[in-house]
């Protein structure tokens, strides 16, 4: 997509609820505080909002309308976006295009999911899928990536576990993270096995959550409570179908999505101060360091152990604790990442603040289906 044809767009307000197990709270009520906070921060009133974009994968029909009913936003166009784990980011992108193209001035974006109502366990996948019918589950898919990555590069299970340790270290500083207790490599490896070599603490927990942002033209932030954060770039890719060999240690959809976006906006990924990436499992974060261009193939553990991606490092990854500490309420995660990055670029993140952060990136993928790396990948770049 050519950004040159769009006017400058900025995030004007953000809202997020603490992620966790909120069994007694309905989907629209999960989203309500996030939507109201995003609106308050934007300094706008309800009648300024011209459209709502809702991301949710497993909330049933018309999640956006159900949220609107509880937040006084009914009557305007509402678009419900399902793109697996990329649902919330896809909703944001659709709003970005609508505002950027001048169709509308102000939009509400909300991502929401309530996984506890599914009864726990692995995410339900499409039962018509030949791989799912043979026992494929999301932890199994990532586990096979991990197995091959360790085999190809001589890394160990301890390298994987260190990702979870870093995640918890960051999550301990994040008020809205689900898991906030620090941990150790030994504890991570001793947690119960899920899909070898991945143990429980290397998998994102089940959780419920919601996040929202208000976006508008970059010059339309006059009454916002915090400095507007510019959307520097937006890109969405779908998976390429293959029926044969695929190198599972190279996440091609992320590599392609990131490469196309970097070229479009002339960005060197090593200049990005802070990133939220799709760390649904420990192996994922390592593979994404490489696919997002932070280091060459096979060298992600070196980056991790060297502190480059930890708070205080050059390219801080998942300062919020990511999905491993927050949980991964599927449709909410993409929007939650945007809230974290925007607040980082506004300098509002207290103990987990990345000092001097000017450039930030959010990355989500999504979908386990035969013949694809993933079904969707959505990346955004933000600039203070």
């Amino acid at each position, binding site marked *: 997509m050519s950004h040159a044809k769009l006017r400058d767009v900025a995030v004007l307000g953000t809202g997020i609820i603490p992620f966790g197990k909120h069994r007694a709270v309905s989907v629209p009520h999960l989203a309500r505080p996030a939507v109201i906070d995003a609106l308050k921060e934007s300094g706008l009133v309800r009648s300024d909002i011209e459209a709502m974009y809702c991301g949710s994968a497993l909330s049933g029909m018309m999640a956006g309308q159900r949220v609107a009913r509880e937040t006084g936003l009914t009557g305007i166009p509402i678009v419900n976006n399902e793109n697996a784990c990329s649902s919330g980011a896809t909703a944001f992108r659709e709003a970005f295009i609508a505002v950027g193209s001048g169709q509308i001035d102000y939009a509400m974006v909300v991502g929401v999911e309530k996984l506890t109502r599914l009864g726990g366990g692995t995410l339900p996948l499409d039962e018509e899928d030949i791989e799912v019918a043979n*026992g494929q589950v999301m932890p199994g898919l990532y586990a096979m990536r991990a197995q091959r990555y360790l085999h190809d590069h001589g890394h160990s299970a301890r390298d994987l576990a260190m990702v979870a340790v870093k995640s918890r270290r960051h999550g301990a500083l994040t008020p809205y993270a689900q898991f906030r207790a620090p941990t150790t490599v030994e504890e991570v490896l001793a947690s119960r096995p899920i899909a*070898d070599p991945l143990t429980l603490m290397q998998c994102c927990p089940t959780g419920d959550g919601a996040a929202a942002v208000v976006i508008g033209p970059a010059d339309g932030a006059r009454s916002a409570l915090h400095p507007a954060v510019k959307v520097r770039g937006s890109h969405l890719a779908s998976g390429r*179908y293959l029926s044969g060999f695929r190198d599972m240690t190279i996440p091609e959809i992320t590599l392609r999505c990131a490469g196309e976006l970097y070229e479009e906006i002339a960005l060197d990924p090593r200049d990005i101060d802070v990133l939220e990436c799709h760390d649904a499992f420990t192996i994922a974060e390592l593979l994404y360091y490489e696919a997002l261009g932070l280091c060459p193939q096979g060298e992600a553990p070196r980056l991790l152990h060297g502190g480059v991606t930890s708070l205080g490092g050059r390219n801080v990854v998942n300062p919020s604790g990511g999905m491993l500490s927050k949980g991964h309420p599927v449709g909410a995660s993409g929007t939650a990442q945007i809230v974290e990055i925007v607040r980082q670029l506004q300098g509002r993140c207290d103990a987990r603040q990345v000092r001097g952060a000017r450039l930030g990136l959010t990355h989500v993928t999504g979908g386990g289906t035969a013949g694809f790396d993933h079904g969707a990948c959505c990346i955004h770049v933000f600039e203070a």
Partner: protein
Amino acid sequence: MNPPSEPLAPNEGARLAATEVMTQEHGLALRASQCMACGKCTFPASTICPFCLHESLRDLPLVGKASLYSFTRVHAAPVNWQTPYALGYADFPNGLRLLAKLADATTDWRADQPVVLKVVAAGEGFRYFLEGAAA
């Protein structure tokens, strides 16, 4: 192919109908297809090539030796599925990659080891799995 609505034992995978398997000289094979125009292979078999949309495809038996690309032992699965079970991706000489249950969850599987695809009758249908094979 029927979705796994019934309990699946650790060595059971997708249950196939008779139209989804082929009888070969040395036993049963899975029915894959190859496009007569672009040459690409597809499993499960298709009547339209998903790569070039050509409508002329030939049946291709999928059976025999392959190389285990990666594997895992799954301990957490949907309700009804007995755990642990082992899963692996196998690459065949014709270029196709297949996900299947591995014959047992206790073997120490290794990346790149040779495996062999077995297709067997199961009740009113068929199922398939991968076994270790000599190099």
